[in-house]
C-alpha cells in the first residue's frame, strides 16, 4: 500500500531523511517511532505529497507520489500532529467542505458524519465554529474529516495527542477496522505502550536513517519496546 524507496530529504546541509526505504502492506498498522527531530514528520509529509523530496521514490497503492500526487491524495488521509483546521467555519460546514473536495456522495457523507460524530460525542457541537473547539475536539474533528472518504491509507502524525482515553480507545478501534477492511495505517507516536499493543509492524528512525524495522514482536525481542528504544537512543549519545 505504501512503498518508500530510498527517500532522502535535506534542509540546507542537514539530511532530515537519509535513504529511507519502507514497505507497508494492506491490512497493516505500522508504527513509526523515533526521537524528536528524527525525521518522522518529514517522512509522513513527503508520503502525503505536501513536502517535496530530493531523492528516492514513494508509491501509494502503486502510484508515484511525485508523478501523480492528486491520484495518491485521493487514496490517502493525513492527520497532522496539530489539528489546524479552518477555524472560521462551523464544524459541520468543514466536514461538508472536505466531503465536497474528496467527492463523497451526499448520502454517504450524511451517514458517515452522523456515525462518527456520535462515536466521538461531537454531534451537539457540530454547529459551533471550530474556533470554539478545544484541542481534543479539533483532533476528533480532524479524524472524522479524515475518515469521510474511506481512505485506503491513513498517515497519522501523533494521532493520540490531546485525545481523552475514551476517544483514544475509539480511534484505536477504528484503526483496526480500517486495516481489517484492507486499508493500511502508518503513524508516528511517542507513546511506546500504544505502539507495542496496536502495531503489527514497527520502524525506528534515528537521525533520518531507518535503524530497525519488522514485526512488533521481532523488534521488541524479549524486552519491552521502551527498553529497545532507550537502548538505541543511548547508542546515539555514545556515538
Amino acid at each position, binding site marked *: 500500500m505504501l512503498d518508500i524507496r530510498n527517500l532522502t530529504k535535506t534542509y540546507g546541509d542537514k539530511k532530515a531523511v537519509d535513504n529511507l526505504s519502507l514497505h507497508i502492506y494492506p491490512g497493516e498498522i505500522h508504527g513509526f517511532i523515533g526521537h524528536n527531530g528524527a525525521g518522522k514528520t518529514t517522512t509522513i509529509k513527503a508520503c502525503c505529497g*505536501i513536502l517535496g523530496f530530493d531523492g528516492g521514490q514513494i508509491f501509494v497503492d502503486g502510484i508515484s507520489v511525485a508523478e501523480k*500526487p492528486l491520484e495518491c491524495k485521493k487514496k490517502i488521509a493525513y492527520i497532522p500532529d496539530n489539528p*489546524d483546521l479552518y477555524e472560521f467555519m462551523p464544524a459541520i460546514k468543514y466536514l461538508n467542505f472536505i466531503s465536497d473536495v*474528496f467527492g463523497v456522495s451526499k448520502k454517504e*457523507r450524511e451517514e458517515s458524519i452522523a456515525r462518527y460524530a456520535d462515536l466521538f460525542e461531537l454531534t451537539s457541537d457540530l454547529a459551533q465554529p471550530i474556533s470554539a473547539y478545544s484541542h481534543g475536539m479539533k483532533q476528533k474533528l480532524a479524524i472524522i474529516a479524515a475518515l469521510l472518504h474511506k481512505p485506503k491509507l491513513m498517515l497519522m502524525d501523533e494521532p493520540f495527542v490531546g485525545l481523552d482515553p475514551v476517544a483514544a480507545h475509539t480511534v484505536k478501534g477504528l484503526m483496526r477496522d480500517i486495516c481489517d477492511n484492507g486499508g493500511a495505517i502508518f503513524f508516528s507516536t511517542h507513546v511506546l505502550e500504544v505502539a507495542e499493543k496496536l502495531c503489527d509492524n514497527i520502524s525506528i528512525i534515528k537521525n533520518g536513517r531507518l535503524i530497525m524495522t519488522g514485526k512488533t514482536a521481532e523488534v521488541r525481542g524479549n524486552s519491552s519496546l521502551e527498553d529497545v528504544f532507550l537502548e538505541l537512543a543511548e547508542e546515539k549519545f555514545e556515538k
Partner: protein
Amino acid sequence: MFKTLLSTRLSMLFSIMFGRLNRGKQPTKTRKVLIVALAVYVVGMLLFSFGSMFAPMAQSLPQIGFAWLYFAMVGLMGFAFGFIGSIFMTEKLLFESTDNDMLLAMPIPPSYILGSRLLTLVILEYIYSAMIFIPAGVVYAMYASTSTAGWIFYALTYLVFAPFITALTSFCGWVIALINSKVARKNIVSTVFMLLFFLGFMAVYMNLNAYLSGVITNSSSLANSWQNGFPPIYWLGTACADGNVVNFLLLAAFCIIPFVIAYLLLSANFFKIATARKSAAKIKYVKKELKAQSARKALTAKEIKRFFTLPIYFLNAGFGAIMLIAAAVFIAVKGADYVSMMSAEIPMEGAVCAIVCLVIGFCNLTIAPAASAISLEGKNINLLKSLPMAAKDIFAAKLTPNLVIGLIPSFLCSAVAAIFLPMTGLEIAAVFAFPLAAQTFIAFLGLFCNIKLPRFDWTNETLVVKQSGAVMIVTLGGMAMLGVLALVYALALAQIMAVSVYLLIVSAVLLAVSAALEGVIAKNAEKYMLEFSYN
C-alpha cells in the same frame, strides 16, 4: 523582559510588512532596492498629498490672524488619520493575538504583555502622525512662520499626540472585545463596528474639501466655537502658533492622562478579556440536509465565506466594491450636474470618460483579496496542500472571489455611467473595458505577489490583510500605475490620440499582462504550492 516583548512584537510587525526579509536569509540586492523603493514611494506619496492639502490653509489662515487654527487643523487631521488607520487592528493586536495563551502561561505580568502591545501601537501611531505633522510643518514653514518655542511645541505635540490616539483606539477595542466575549457570532459585532467607522470615515472624506474651504471662509466663527466648545484644540493651536507654554502643558496633560488611565485599566482587565472567549453562547446543532457540490466550487465557496466572515478582510480588501456601488448611485443621481460643471473647468475632449475610468480604476485597486488569500491560510497551509486538488485549481479558487467581488460592481458602475453620462460609442467601450482590465490585472497581480511573498506565521489576520508586502505592492503599485498612465497621456499622447483610444489600448495591455501572469502561475503552480511552508 519588557524590552524583549516589545522587540518581538515589532520584529513580527516589520517582518509581515517586508516579506521574508527577517527570516534568516540574506535578502538579495534587488529585493532590498525594491523594498526601499516601495517605502520611499509610499511615504513620498502620502507626504505630498497631505502637504498639498494643507498648502491653501497655510497661505490664508496665518494672514488673517488665525495661525492657531492651522495647527488645530493639523491636530484634527492627525487624529483622524491615526484613529482610522489603527482602530481596526487595535482589538486584534491587544486582545486576540494567537500567542495570548503562550505568553500568559509564562511568568510574565499581564501588564507587561499589554504594555508591549500598547507601545507597539503607539509606535505605529507615530508613523501615521508623521505623515500629517511633517508635511504640515514643512508647508507652514514655506508660507508662514512661528517662534522657536512654537516649533518646539509643535514637535512635542507630535510626541504626546500618539499616546492619546492609542488610548482612544484601545478603549474602543476593549468595548468590541467585551461585546465579542458575550456573543456567539462575534464576527457580526466586529463587522458592524467596522462598517460604522468606515461609513463615518467616508462621510468625512467625501466632505473634506468642502470642510477645508469652510475652515478658510468661516475661520472666525469656527475659531470661536472650538475655543469655547473644545478647548484642547485651542490649546494645541496656540501652543504651536504662539509658543504658549501653559496651553501646551494643558494639552500634554489632556493627551497623556487618558493613556495612563488606559494602560492601568486595560492591564488590570487584560487577563479577563484575553481569556473570556470560551464563555461565548453555544450554537445548537440542528440536523439539516447537506448540500453537495464540486471540489472547485467548494473551495471557491470556502474563500468567499472567509472573505465575508472575516470583517477585517472584507473591509480592507473589498471596500472598493461598496465604493463602486455608491459611485454608481452618485452618477445616476448627480452625474449629469457634475458633467456640466466639469466641462466648464476641464475643457478636455473625453474628460468624462477619463474621470469615470480613473474613479472606477481607483476603486478597483482597493479590491484585492487575492493579495492576501494565500497568506491567510496560515497554519492551514498543510491542510490545503494535502487536498486532492491541482495547485492551479486551488489558485483559481483564490482568484475567483477577487474577480467576482471586483467585476460585478465595476460593471454596474460602468453601465450606470454609460446610461447617465454623455459619451461617444468609443468612450462607452473604454468605460467598460478599462475597469474590467484593471480589476483583472489587480487580481492576478495580487495572487502572483502573494505566491511570491507568502506569510503564514502571523499571529492575527489583521497584519496580513493590512500590512503584508503583497497587499502593499498591489495597492500602492496600482496607484502608481494609474498615476503614470494619466501622466503619460497628459504629457505625451493627448495630442496624438483620443483618451478613449488610449484607454482601450491600455486595457488590452493589462489583459495581456494578466494572461501572461495566469500562464506563469498555471505553469509553476505545483512548484509554488510545494514550496509553501508554515515552518
